């Protein structure tokens, strides 16, 4: 198998009208978050903590993480469950899309004029029919200290 035919599965989702994708092997599950307990004194991107089948999940609001402003439409968010270094995280997004199989070779580097907040966590862009899909580097999304340092 050569590189041009190598495919990767991406879980896609939208937030603030932008489509994103995460490599499927990094996604644990997708769930509707309920009863999020907010955590006083935590950063804006921490939506709170919640109980997902006996595990405590830290919910991270992707909008805030990307500097896209707070969720204002009052619509319930969806969450993408992610495991990182033995901890559970839930990435709050607007809506979950389908799983796409995309060839590695078609992934393009971040455009140079990409929003800086986005550029820091993006690992490339796919040109799809009618819209663009930004691939997220989840480890950089979860590295909140870098976000704080950059702010």
């Amino acid at each position, binding site marked *: 198998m050569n590189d041009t035919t190598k495919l990767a599965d991406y879980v896609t989702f939208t937030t603030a009208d932008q489509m994103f994708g995460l490599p499927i092997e990094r996604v644990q599950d997708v769930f509707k978050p309920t*009863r999020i307990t907010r*955590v*006083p004194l*935590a950063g804006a991107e921490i939506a709170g903590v*919640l*109980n997902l089948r006996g595990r*405590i999940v830290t919910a991270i609001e992707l909008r805030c993480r990307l500097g896209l402003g707070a969720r204002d439409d009052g619509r319930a968010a969806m969450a993408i469950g992610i495991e990182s270094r033995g*901890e559970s995280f839930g990435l709050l997004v607007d809506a979950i899309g389908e799983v796409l199989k995309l060839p590695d070779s078609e992934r393009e580097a971040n455009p140079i004029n990409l929003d800086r907040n986005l550029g820091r966590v993006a690992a490339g862009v796919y040109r799809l029919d009618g819209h663009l899909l930004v691939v997220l580097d989840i480890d950089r999304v979860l590295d909140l200290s870098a976000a704080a340092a950059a702010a």
Partner: protein
Amino acid sequence: MDDLLREFLSETNESLNLVDAELVRFEQEPNNGNILGNIFRLVHTIKGTCGFLGLSRLEALAHAAETLMGKFRDGMPVTTEAVTVVLSTIDRIKTILDEIEAQQQEPTGSDGDLIDHLGCLTRQENATPQPAPPAAPKKLDKSDKVVAERADEERSEPLANHSIRVNVDTLDYLMTTVSELVLTRNQLLEIVRQHEDSDFKVPLQRLSNVTAELQEGVMKTRMQPIGNAWQKLPRVVRDLCAELGKDIELEMHGADTELDRQVLDLVKDPFTHLVRNCADHGIESPAQRLAAGKTRKGTIRLSAWHQGGHIIIEIADNGRGLDIAGIQAKAVEKGLASEAELAAKSEAEICNFIFTPGFSTAAKVTSISGRGVGMDVVRSNIEQIGGTVDLKSVSGVGTTFTIKIPLTLAIVSALIVEAGGERFAIPQLSVLELVRAGNNGEHRIERIKDAPVLRLRNKLLPLIRLDEVLRLGECDRENGFVVVTQVGNQVFGAVVDGVFHTEEIVIKPMSSKLRHIPVFSGTTILGDGSVIMIIDPNGVAQALGRAATAAQADKPDLTSREEDSDADTVSLLLFRAGSQQPKAVPLALVTRLEEIDCRKIEISDGRHLVQYRDQLMPLVRVNTETNLKKEGAQPILVFSDRGRSMGLVVDEIIDIVEERLDIEVASEHPGLLGYAVIKGATTEIIDVGHFLPQAFEDWFRRRDLSMARLSRTVLLVDDSAFFRDLLTPLIKAAGYRVVAVASAADALAALKSDTRFDLIVTDIEMPEMDGFGFAEAVRAMSDTAAIPIIALSAMVSAEAIERGRAVGFHDYVAKFDRTGLIAAIKEQSAGLDRAA
């Protein structure tokens, strides 16, 4: 992985750790056949199993080691060289085992070097015994050897009779399941609580009890003796001795003290690090020790015991103690503190610098320690599991680290409270009591400027609103519950909006994204399935300290921790009376703050009186300009002593501040000690002693003032005029004659004069000669050697008390502890009466 292989690996690793420890013992007691038998048996088992599993490299190594050990058993003299080679062989075996675990097959490679060496030593049997190599400072005098709790008989028997091997994962899984069961039980209890007469009540009670028993049982299975974490240490110390040319004895006490496996794992590394530190920095070389008049051999003592819900572990050495001057120099060099700041710190505070990241005083970086990493990691590891680490160092005598850690991390009892619309858990361990506070109730939250306080049994309890700490927005500021909390010596009240109940909560570690928030120590899932945050009382106490210093917000907050504990600051009550200029009085002298309805103030014989607590309390004005209010509430400061109270009339109470008190301009004006700059404003410091006789003319003369006591004379030594003026009337009030002097030199002169002193009360921190030096000088003079000395200090630390005892202080009283001082004086003079 093959089950058989897995079992072999875990069993062998365990055996090897034992062999490690046993060998070190054996080296010290070469004639102990029991130990040798043990080692021989363990190595033999390893060899046999390796052969069975076809692990030829391991088998060859074990065989060579066994042969050498067989020679020991046959009477060949044990040399350090031989033991070192056997230990290296064990290390090699461990390395190979690790690789087997990773790759599931024996790695290729040659162990010819070790096998040859072992063989060579084995063949030396009949050769002339080698003189001990110079790197082996082992000596044979066992007379001073105190090896604690080593029951050889116990060890020689295999222990495995009544136990089975259980995979740790199984236990952890069991623990998680029980945790979930506890949560479900709580959930059911919650439901039944809402239905008073439910049929479920009785069976649920039973379920609840069984769950509790099960929980306890499972916790027990997770308990391990702390000795397991110490197993490696004898070897560590032995290797260090060889490397550094030191002679160190490692004592272990209380190795069977049990604690949770999870906690144990987390403290293993800190232990090793502390012991290495003691061996490397603490214990001197044999030559230095002999020169200092100590035994050649240094001792590191590990002890562990239970105390309440905690386990206390002490790591003590009898070495040189911490190099205070070195730490100070390093702190300045690293920009952690200025010289002036250091001068104001106690030794204990200076010692604490070693826990700062990147701090190392070792002049040369050795392979053992001094790499500038470590002590900060030790502290953060221990604090992460809710523990504390303290250190005490006495120059030339040794250093002691005291570690206090909770027995288990898994389940604790917690109080569920509500603040700002959210629920939080406060661990019961730190909660002293609950007080309901409200406008109508007995307890009212009062405010001194912005600082809320509560009167609780004649004391002012500083309060902090939990919703304010957590920035949850404004709520009812007058009503609520006060959770009286103790952190170390600090007692404060955390105000919450509601208190629900106590619940056994299962502590889940904090998300790494939230760990930087100091007021939370973890998260938990409640009976109803919701997640709540667990409050860390330490963090709240810090926030309380910050609130007190928030007024000086222009200062960077980085040092708040140090500032909070700064021994030289004094709580001052600021108020206005008669003029706009602020006045201040030490808060410790004030019994209460009251507001009295003006209509209740009576005038009798030209004096103002008020009925207060079924007594008539005279009111005294600070100055003639202060007028009593005609209507409304009149603020007063109440000073009480032996059942009598006096009210000092003021216009307005401004604030309570923590400040260093330096009286810059003394005053001749009666009732005024002088002026100090407080919060940037010139402030008059009030002399309370002046007003007391105005209320009761006989304040200083009344009651049981026996002639004997009046004839007693106290010498008061303090460089601060403020304290001299403050304490003189107090001691006089207790019925003693007082001679107050400003320095140790003056005091020594006074002692040499004709006046006979019965008792000395001295400050510790004084320029030129401090209290310790003064006490030594007093002890050195034959006339005065017997006079009891009471030390007075703002810094009452364990190490200062110890030093005080050594120089001959009879008692030690905190500077603002009036009652304590008088009690100490009485006690010491009672001693004089008995002696007379």
